[in-house]
């Protein structure tokens, strides 16, 4: 078909023919449904493929776009978006019937415009809600909703260019994409696959999150990016299943990365490159570390290299000046993350506003205590918080998920007999041997499952 060929030759991105596995179907970027999107559009996706289709649409047409999962945007946020000039487009709500949702495993119908509720005639769908204050679109603009760990999600402006942080040619990889559509981390994986040939994607739907290693092994995933919580959950649920995924690249980000999780992944994947990334919607990807150690070298501080972010520490806070800033941000950005220099490394331990616990005047880093707990061979996950207490104001308390009973996946710690996990007293003693007295959590609640949010982070 000559029209289609001409259009593809002109504007399809370099990765258009990469393989995408989504909702049980294997296809390419080109095969995704062609959405009819009036710019500026806020796409609220109920399924991953519609979010991917929206990203591809932007790469081809440059339509001003915000992508989010439908569940992250409540009525108030929807009204805000409409008032900010966005047409709100909801896709995939009736995805129970895949044909109606506009996509079959075989690909698209000839008409193209078959996405949820849309017809070839265009915008007649119930899924579209017009802007209350229409404005001209800004071509090339992409909007992200921040993860909201600091409160209500806010919009940060980017472009495909500013979101594409991996530019050098990469070895061919099949990437797992476990992130919620529209988040900064999701865009990182998506832009990599859109802009480079040979970077394939296997998408994990939220309901598949517990069993992603099986999906990944089936489709030959050899690179995966996830939060430490995401990795801890996989290690906790089924280490043997995880070990069957032929990973050559293991990436962590989105939360503080401690040495224990890096070491456990190294045990399971001795030949893989293990990297952790510090990135946020506001400053982009600023720190990438491949040496398998928590934190980054002190010598990276205050180093100015054109085209690269400059990293500093001010009053214990990580400060970043980045060429990948979101729109409207310039100069040094205070990240709100606590940075601590320990020997030759700078460790990022958590959010400043929630990391510091004041125990009778002594300051405790929740992240520091959490790292001590997760370093215990029988602890899979831990959360440390301050709790209101008499005399001291606050006390350190913790929630802990022990590793499952049975022998550990590979060598290392001694096998654990069923029912032989650590109890509260044993964990308190472990901490007492490694922390000042006031930093030792006195109340430790044992949980059986690692709690996780849609962002794959565990911090509330």
């Amino acid at each position, binding site marked *: 078909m000559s029209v289609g060929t001409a259009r593809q030759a002109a504007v399809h991105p370099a990765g258009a023919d990469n393989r995408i596995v989504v909702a049980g179907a294997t296809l390419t970027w080109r095969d995704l449904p062609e959405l009819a999107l009036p710019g500026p559009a806020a796409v609220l996706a109920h399924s991953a493929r519609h979010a991917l289709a929206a990203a591809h649409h932007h790469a081809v047409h440059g339509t001003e776009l915000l992508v989010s999962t439908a569940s992250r945007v409540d009525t108030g946020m929807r009204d805000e978006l409409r008032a900010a000039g966005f047409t709100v487009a909801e896709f995939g709500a009736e995805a129970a019937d895949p044909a109606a949702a506009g996509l079959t495993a075989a690909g698209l119908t000839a008409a193209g415009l078959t996405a949820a509720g849309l017809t070839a005639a265009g915008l007649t769908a119930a899924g579209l809600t017009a802007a209350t204050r229409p404005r001209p679109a800004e071509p090339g603009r992409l909007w992200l909703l921040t993860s909201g760990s600091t409160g209500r999600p806010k919009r940060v402006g980017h472009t495909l260019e500013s979101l594409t942080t991996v530019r050098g040619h990469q070895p061919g990889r099949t990437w797992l994409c476990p992130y919620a559509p529209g988040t900064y981390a999701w865009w990182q994986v998506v832009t990599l696959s859109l802009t480079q040939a040979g970077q394939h994607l296997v998408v994990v739907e939220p309901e598949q999150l517990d069993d992603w290693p099986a999906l990944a092994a089936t489709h030959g995933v050899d690179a995966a990016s996830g939060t430490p919580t995401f990795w801890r959950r996989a290690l906790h649920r089924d280490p043997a299943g995880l070990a069957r995924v032929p990973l050559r690249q293991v990436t962590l980000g989105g939360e503080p990365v401690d040495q224990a999780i890096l070491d456990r992944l190294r045990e399971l994947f001795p030949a893989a490159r293990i990297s952790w990334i510090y990135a946020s919607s506001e400053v982009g990807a600023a720190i990438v570390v491949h040496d398998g150690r928590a934190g980054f070298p002190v010598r990276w501080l205050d180093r100015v290299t054109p085209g690269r972010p400059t990293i500093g520490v001010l009053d214990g806070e990580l400060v970043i000046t980045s060429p990948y800033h979101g729109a409207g941000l310039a100069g040094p950005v205070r990240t709100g993350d606590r940075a601590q220099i320990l020997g030759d490394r700078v460790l990022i331990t958590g959010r400043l506003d929630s990391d510091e616990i004041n125990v009778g005047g002594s300051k405790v880093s929740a992240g520091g205590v959490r790292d001590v707990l997760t370093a215990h061979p029988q602890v899979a996950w831990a959360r440390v918080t301050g709790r209101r*207490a*008499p005399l*001291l104001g606050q*006390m350190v308390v913790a929630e802990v998920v022990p590793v499952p009973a049975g022998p550990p996946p590979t060598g290392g710690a001694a096998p654990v007999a069923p029912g032989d996990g650590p109890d509260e007293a044993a964990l*308190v003693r472990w901490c007492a041997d490694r922390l000042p007295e006031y930093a030792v959590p006195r109340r430790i609640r044992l949980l059986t499952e690692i709690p996780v949010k849609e962002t794959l982070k565990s911090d509330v």
Partner: protein
Amino acid sequence: MKELSRAQIRDLMAQVLKNQGKVLPADDAADLREVGFRSLDFSELALRVEDETGEELNFDAPGLRRIATVGDVLDFLVELQRQ
């Protein structure tokens, strides 16, 4: 609302001390400094009482007082539950 008896609070206090490798003497008149029961231990005990009863204690209510013996701690927490 569930309320802990003085004896139940005493058991919790013994548990707190045991976790620190210390022993709660039978004598209520025992001096807290000699027992080695300190602010952190007192705070932990209060949290344990809260966890058992499912109610937050209101520490501001009774005003300041001298807490020097094992008995003082028990009396104070029994009273706090009633505030």
